[in-house]
C-alpha cells in the first residue's frame, strides 16, 4: 500500500523493525548531532550517573521511530507530519529495540485526510523506551 493512499484504515499496523543499538551507532549519533555528552560516550563517567553505564541518546531512539514513519508515509511524513513523544526508559548499548505503530484514527482536516498513529520503540524486556503519537497527512 503506498503512502498517501486513502486506503488505510484504523487498526492498520505500521511496519516496524528491529535495530541493535551498538556503541558504534551511539558514537556515530554523537558525531551527527554534535551531542558528545559523556553519559553517552565515556563509560567511566557514565558509571557515576544514575544509570551506572552509558546510555544511547534518546533522540537516537526517536530517530528510529521517525525512520519507520518516513518509510511508511514516504511522500507525506516530511511534509506536514507531527509527533509528540515521551522518553520513558533509557536504551543501553547492546540492546535491540523494536519500533512499532498503529493507526488509531483517520480524520478529515482542512488539508485533507490525516492519520493519527500510536508510535513507539520497545526495549528487549517489552518496556517502552519511546512512546507517543504521530499525525501524518495521507494525501
Amino acid at each position, binding site marked *: 500500500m503506498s503512502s498517501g493512499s486513502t486506503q488505510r484504515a484504523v487498526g492498520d499496523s505500521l*511496519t516496524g*523493525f528491529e*535495530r541493535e543499538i551498538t556503541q*558504534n*551507532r*551511539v558514537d*556515530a*549519533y554523537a*558525531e*551527527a*548531532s*554534535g*551531542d558528545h*555528552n559523556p553519559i553517552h560516550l565515556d563509560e567511566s563517567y557514565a558509571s557515576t*550517573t*544514575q544509570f551506572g553505564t552509558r546510555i544511547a*541518546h*534518546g*533522540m*537516537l531512539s*526517536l*530517530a*528510529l521511530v*521517525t*525512520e519507520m514513519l*518516513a*518509510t511508511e508515509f*514516504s511522500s507525506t511524513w*516530511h*511534509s*506536514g*507530519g*507531527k*509527533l*509528540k*513523544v*515521551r*522518553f520513558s526508559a533509557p536504551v543501553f548499548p547492546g540492546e535491540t529495540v523494536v519500533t512499532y505503530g498503529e493507526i488509531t484514527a483517520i480524520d478529515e482536516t482542512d488539508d485533507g485526510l490525516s492519520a493519527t498513529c500510536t508510535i513507539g520503540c520497545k526495549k528487549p524486556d517489552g518496556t517502552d523506551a519511546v512512546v507517543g503519537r504521530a499525525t501524518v497527512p495521507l494525501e
Partner: protein
Amino acid sequence: MVTPLISTATVGHEFGPYDVTIPADRANAYAASVGGEESPDYGDSLAPIMVVAAALTRLIDDLGLFSGGLQTVHAGQEVSWARQIRIGEQVEATARLAANSVRRGNHFATVAVTYRDSTGTEVGTSSTTIIVSGEAS
C-alpha cells in the same frame, strides 16, 4: 562553579539564532547511526529529526546542562515539519524557554524552537521537555 542558565533563565528567555545547517559528513554519520536495510532513501535530503537534534545540542550547551554535577533527562519531544530539507541547506533555529519550574528540587523546563530556511520561511517547529537534577542552587 558558574551557575547554569537553567537556574536563572525565566520563561520567555530567547536562545539563538543557531545555524543548524547539516553538512554531508554529519548526514553520513546520521545514516551510520540510524540507518539499516529498511531505511528510506533520503537522496540529497535530511531526516528533519537530525536538524532538531542539532538545535537541541546547542540549547543544552547554552542552558549549561553539560556542567559538572548536573544530570539531565530528556523527558519529552514534539516535532512538526513542513517540508524536506536538503543536505547543506541553510536552516536557522530560534528558541524560547516556554516553561521552567522547580518541583522537589528538580527543574522541569520546556524549550520551544522554530526553524526557518534562508528565505525566513518557517520549515518546522519542535518542543523539548527536560528534567534537570543535581543543581547547586
